Each structure stands twice: as C-alpha cells, then as structure tokens.
C-alpha cells in the first residue's frame, strides 16, 4: 500500500483545496458592473498604494548593484561599460521581477490574507453567501485581475527607476564615467529579457494574489488565526515565487 506521510497529506490537502477555490473564483461573475467596481477598488489597494515603496526600493537596488559591481570589478582587463550592462541586466532579469515579487508578497500578500481572514471571522463572507453571491469570485477575482495587471507594470517601472538609480550613483560618486555607463546600458541588449521578466512578473502576480487569498479565505477561528494566515500567505507565496522563478528561467532561457 502507498504510504503518504502526514506532511505530504497536508500539502495535498491544501493543494486540492486551493484548486477547488480557484474553480469557484473563475466561475462566471454574477453582475459584471459590481465586479468592475471591485476591480477599481483593488487597483487602488494593490496597485496605487504600492507605487511609493516600489519606487524607493528600485532606486536603491539599482544604485547599490551599480556601486557593488563597480567596486568588485576594478581590473584593467575588464571594460568599464560592464558596470552599466550589469546594472541593466540585473534589474531586468532578476531584481525587478523576483526581488520585487518577494517584497510584494510581504506587502500585498499579508494585506489580502488579513482582509479576507477578517471578513471570514466576522461573517461578512457568510453574509455574501447567504445572499446567493459567489463570495470567492466576488472577493478574490478582482484581486487577481488587479495583480495580473499591476505586477508587470511594477516590473517595468522598477527597471526604469533601478537603472536611473544606477545612473545617479555613477553621476554622484564618479566611480566610472557617465558615457561608459551609458554605453554599457546599450551594449548587447536582448529584448527577449524584457519579455521573460514580464512573463515572470505576470505569473508571480497570480501566485501572490491567489495563494494569499486562499490562506485568508479559508481562515477558521479568531484574530490569532487571521495573524497566522497572514504569515502563511507571505511564506508560501514567497516559496512559490522562488520555485517558479527557477522553473520559468529554465523554461524560457534554456
């Protein structure tokens, strides 16, 4: 007989419930006008409210990666333009999608889980169900839609701001000349890298919003459980982001 360990059983239980929840989420909406209003609200909650932190983090990430590359490649055999190239490719390939996704898992993921968890324990979700509304679809679908739209946008914004941060650090510290940095930014550019990072951010947006929603929506108990669900949402969203980062990199860049 096949032996399944308790950990595996729990994993399969959550995986099964997650997919059952997704089937409810993607059921046909009851009234599209009401959903539209919810999407607009989530665009504000998930998108616009995260803009500030993304700008700050990206600016400093670009700046630091430029300075680190500059100070670690002080060799006459290495051309100076590599610093600009390093900044550009680091931001495009990894930092603006994966790092940002991990930060957003903390900010947006915990927010989604605690919001839905609180709605669950205060019977607001039951109230929706008692009216005959598909609560999973009504509450979660707009969050997923807003995330799918905003995560690629965040990534593009982060790339631009990150490179600007690198450029500013070069301009301020004079670690290399600005023409060298600019040349590196333009050297050997592969447009597919942008496509690759946008695909990643799209999928990360889905993972963070859906996994966090799952943990929030299925809370049972009280305030303590909402807190736990919020932590789980961040942890499991982050793990999934890292896992899919490896899978997508192998699939898209090999």
């Amino acid at each position: 007989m096949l032996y399944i360990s308790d950990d595996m059983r729990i994993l399969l239980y959550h995986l099964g419930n997650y997919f059952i929840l997704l089937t409810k989420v993607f059921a046909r909406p009851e009234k599209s006008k009401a959903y539209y209003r919810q999407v607009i609200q989530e665009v504000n909650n998930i998108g616009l409210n995260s803009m500030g932190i993304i700008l700050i983090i990206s600016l400093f990430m670009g700046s630091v990666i430029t300075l680190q590359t500059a100070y670690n490649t002080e060799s006459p055999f290495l051309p100076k333009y590599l610093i600009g190239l390093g900044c550009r490719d680091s931001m495009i390939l990894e930092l603006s999608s994966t790092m940002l996704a991990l930060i957003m898992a903390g900010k947006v993921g915990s927010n989604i889980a605690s919001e839905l968890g609180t709605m669950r324990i205060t019977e607001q979700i039951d109230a929706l169900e008692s009216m005959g509304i598909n609560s999973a679809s009504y509450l979660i679908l707009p969050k997923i839609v807003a995330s799918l739209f905003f995560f690629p946008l965040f990534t593009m914004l982060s790339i631009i701001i990150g490179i600007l941060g690198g450029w500013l650090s070069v301009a301020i510290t004079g670690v290399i000349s600005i023409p060298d940095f600019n040349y590196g930014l333009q050297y050997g550019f592969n447009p597919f890298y942008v496509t690759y990072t946008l695909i990643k951010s799209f999928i990360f947006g889905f993972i963070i919003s859906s996994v966090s929603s799952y943990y929030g929506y299925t809370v049972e108990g009280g305030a303590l459980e909402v807190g736990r669900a919020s932590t789980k949402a961040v942890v499991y969203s982050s793990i999934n982001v890292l896992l899919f980062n490896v899978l997508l990199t192998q699939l898209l860049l090999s």
Partner: protein
Amino acid sequence: MIRVEHLTKVFEDKLVLDDISCTFDKGKTNLIIGQSGSGKTVFLKAIVGLITPTQGDIYYGDTNFTQLNRIQQKEIRKKIGMLFQGAALFDSATVEENVMFPLHMFTSMSDKEKIERVNFCLERVNVTGANDLFPSEISGGMKKRVGLARAIVLNPEYLFCDEPNSGLDPQTSILIDELIKDITDEFQTTTIVNTHDMNSVMGIGEKIIFIHQGKKAWEGNNKEILSSDNEALNKFVFANQMAQELRKARSGGK
C-alpha cells in the same frame, strides 16, 4: 413556510445536529433556543445553506432546497434576508452602501430608486442621518439595525436572525426584538430567530424550538414554555435567580 425533515450534521466524528424535524410558520417569529454550543447556529446556517447537512431535507414552501444545485439555490437565496450575530456589515462600505449592496447585485433599479429604498429601510429600523458613516463609527445596536435594514431591503420572504441581541443592553435588545416582530407582521415573512435571550423568548416567541445537545427537545410557544415539564428546558428557562423566584412564586413558594 420552511419545513425541516430529519436534519443531521456531523463534523468529522462529532454529531452536532441529530435528526431534527420541525416547521417554521409564515408570518410568525419562530425561535430556535438552546444553550451555547447546543447546535443552534449550525442549525440556522444549515437551513440557510451556509453549511451542508450530512442528512435530511429542508423545504422552502414545496421546494426541496437541499436537492437544488448552486444556481437553483441562488433563486431561493434572493428571497432570504439574514441578520448575523455581529451584523456582518462590510467594513469598507458606508451604512448606505451596505444596505444598498443587495439592490446593486440583484435589481436593475435606478440610483434614485435605490437610494429611496435604502432610506425607507433605514427609517424603518430607526436609523437616520447615518448614511455616510462606516460600521466602525456606529454603535453595536445601530450595527444590528443596519444589518436588519440590509436583510429586509429586497423584501425577503424569509428572515433569519442569528442571536440578534447578543452584546446589546436590555433596552436595545427589546427594541431589536420589537423591530423583528413588527417587520414579520408587516411583511408576513417566515422569520427564524436564533437566541438564548429569555426576554426575546417571552416577548416574541410565537413558535419556539428548543435544541438540547443537538436534538429537538421541545416545541411550543411563549405561553407554554413556563409550564413545561421538560427538565432540560426548565434548566435553561429558569437558569437565573429572578426566573427561579418567579417559578417559586407561581408554584406557591414550594
């Protein structure tokens, strides 16, 4: 009228509802009473369809609710209004938006008609001038009244109230009870109130179902309840000092 036949609910290996059969009459306030943990809330939620029964049937009129699929159940749910224990108002919406919510989802009324209907319902539950306040800005009693306004906004045929008096002072409790009774009489709804408040039992209990350890232990009305010889019911009814003294006085001090 709502008819429940042989309703049983088991959670994992715990029997919570044990073969309950009863009817709830139209135009009457039907009460489900019992101690905390006796299964009242599970019973009420099973009737509304928020919990799937393990066995048994629930009839709304002649329609077997338990045999319907989700889409068919939705048609019945449109005729249901429910007041939850904590009112379950949507935190992110104002009083007006909360009451208007079912109208948005299920009617094609114009905005003007919706506002008129909302104001009518709010006036009906004696809440005026609070349209723009959020649930966090109003008192517990007011929340219950707004919850009641939301429950009646679609002119429901069936009104469910889960512990409408919990957490309220005696005066406000009486007001809420009177409102429920008046609404039942006025709109001829089939009203089911889940309570352990003896004031409600004596005040509005036109039909009473007593649940004890998951079973229906007694059925009657507020005139019969004080003279019942059901031991579990007597323990429940005469639990406090005042009720015990009243009982002594009724039995000539014995």
